[in-house]
Structures are given as C-alpha cells and as structure tokens.
C-alpha cells in the first residue's frame, strides 16, 4: 500500500506515522504538504496528530481550509480510505467528513498516557485484524479529545455502528473511570456511515513495537493493509 501523511504547519506526529508505515510495516509512505493539491496516488491518507496552525481558533478549524483538504474530501467522498489521528480527528470533524465535535477535556488537563480501547466491530477496513471487543493498549496525548454530539444524533451514530473504539479498562469494561476526557459514551474513535473514514484520539502509530510499550496499534494499520490488498485483488 502507499500511504500519504499530510503535514500541516504544527503537525508533530507525521514522522511517527511515516516511520510506522515505512520502517515497521515496510510499506510505501510519503509526506503530503498542506499546500499541495496532489495525493500522489496514495491508497490511504493519514491526517496526523499535532497542533495544526497552533490550534488557533479551535483545534483543526484552520487546517481544514488547507488546499490539500479539498482533495482529501474528494478522495474520501469517492470511497478512499482516510484516517485522522488526534488532531487529524479534529480536522475531520471540522471539515464535516465525520460527525460531532471534539471539545476541551472535561477536567481541562492535557492527558498523555497509555489507555485501553475496545474494538467494537471487526468487519471494517480499520479493525478487520482485531477480535470482537479486543482490548488494545494505545497512548493518548491530547487536551481536546472530549467527543460530543447531541443526544438524538449520538443515538443514530450508535445505531449505525459508527462507534469503532471505546475507552475501557484492562478487562474491556466500559466504565466512567476508564474515560480519560469525558467523551460521550466513552467514544475514542468513530467512522463515517460509509466506513471509509476513521477518526480516533489515541495514537496507533505510537504503539507499533514492543519497545514502545505496545504494538497494538499495528493491528489497526494492518487491518487497513489487509483491506486494501483485498480491494486490489
């Protein structure tokens, strides 16, 4: 697979994503500058973590108007796989590819630590390599990861099965103690109704080798690789 990692001014996890794809998985990866309008034939676009445009105004609010985002939206609308991690998730909600909004953490603190998340489905391009309700240990690092959506809309999201990851304890129980930021229904990651756009606050690209503390993030990236190889056959 060929993965394009978008670099906005202020992105700081673009090299982590690149290294995970290129050096750990041995796949093709390329950086896509925010001013570019060419996705260079990539099969997967990653919007990485960081503080695009200094998080001015609202996290992701200005990055979404970057020239490359027009192409990313077109790519997603034609079925292309897009993954927004942390700040990338914020960009995806701001540009409307994903529903809802990410607000200030309920406790107002920046949280940087390992958390457990539970894969709610295994029949998606992003979780095909996970077991049902498998618990993954993946780090978070954010101040605005508190997922919010209005009551009736959250119900629709749940009914559609768009919630892919939920914060949980080590045993996979979804508890309020395991919720690091106040997200509604412990939501850590969602996808669009079509299933080709994923946004998640935890950083799978930071959990790709045992020496990093966990390699559970690889399951998500390998799911995408598997889905793409299936697609091309």
């Amino acid at each position, binding site marked *: 697979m060929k993965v394009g990692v978008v670099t906005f001014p202020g992105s700081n996890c673009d090299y982590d994503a690149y290294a995970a794809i290129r050096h750990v998985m041995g796949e093709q990866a390329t950086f896509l500058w925010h001013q570019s309008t060419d996705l260079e034939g990539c099969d997967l676009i990653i919007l990485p973590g960081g503080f695009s445009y200094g998080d001015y*105004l609202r996290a992701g609010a200005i990055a979404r108007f970057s020239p490359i985002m027009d192409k990313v939206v077109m790519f997603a609308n034609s079925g292309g796989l897009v993954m927004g991690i942390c700040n990338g998730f914020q960009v995806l909600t701001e540009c409307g590819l994903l529903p809802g909004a990410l*607000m200030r953490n309920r406790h107002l603190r920046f949280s940087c630590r390992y958390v457990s998340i539970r894969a709610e489905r295994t029949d998606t391009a992003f979780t095909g390599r996970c077991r049902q309700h498998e618990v993954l240990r993946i780090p978070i690092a954010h101040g605005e990861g508190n997922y919010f959506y209005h009551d009736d809309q959250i119900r629709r999201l749940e009914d559609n099965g768009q919630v892919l990851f939920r914060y949980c304890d080590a045993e996979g129980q979804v508890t309020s103690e395991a919720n690091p930021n106040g997200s509604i229904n412990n939501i850590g990651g969602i996808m669009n109704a079509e299933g080709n756009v994923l946004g998640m606050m935890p950083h799978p690209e930071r959990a790709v080798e045992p020496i990093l503390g966990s390699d559970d993030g690889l399951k998500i990236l390998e799911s995408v690789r598997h889905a793409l190889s299936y697609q091309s056959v």
Partner: protein
Amino acid sequence: MSKKATVYVRLKDGVLDPQGVTIHKALNQMGYSEFASVRSGRFFELEIAGGSEDIDSRLQEVCSRLLSNPVIENFHIEKE
C-alpha cells in the same frame, strides 16, 4: 456604513463548558457565592475594509464557516 463588526461566539445551551464550570468553582472558593453559573465564550472584532455590498451575508458566512463550529456553538454579530 459600519466600520466594525464584533462577533460573539458561545457554546450552545446544553453543551458542557468545563472552563465556565471551573471559573464558577473558583468564584465560589473566593467567596463570590452570588453567581449561579458561568458560561465562557469569545469574541472577534472584524474591521471592515469595504468593497462588499452584501456585508451582512458575508459576515454570516464567515461566522458559520470559520469563527464558530455550528455543531456546538452559537454566534451573534453586532455592527458599529
């Protein structure tokens, strides 16, 4: 013609405002117990250069596309 527009952006009713809650708690601790709640928000001052006849609709557009996130926030505009 108006020279300046001030845009006020605040969270919609029912959306939790952790900053407001924290400020309210601080006020209580300081002894200012007469306030029932605090909601935070922000404002923007836009100086108008002219050249646009439909400035009102342009302002509405700017507020809903960039200055506020319609999922969680309301805005209102005051012109001088």
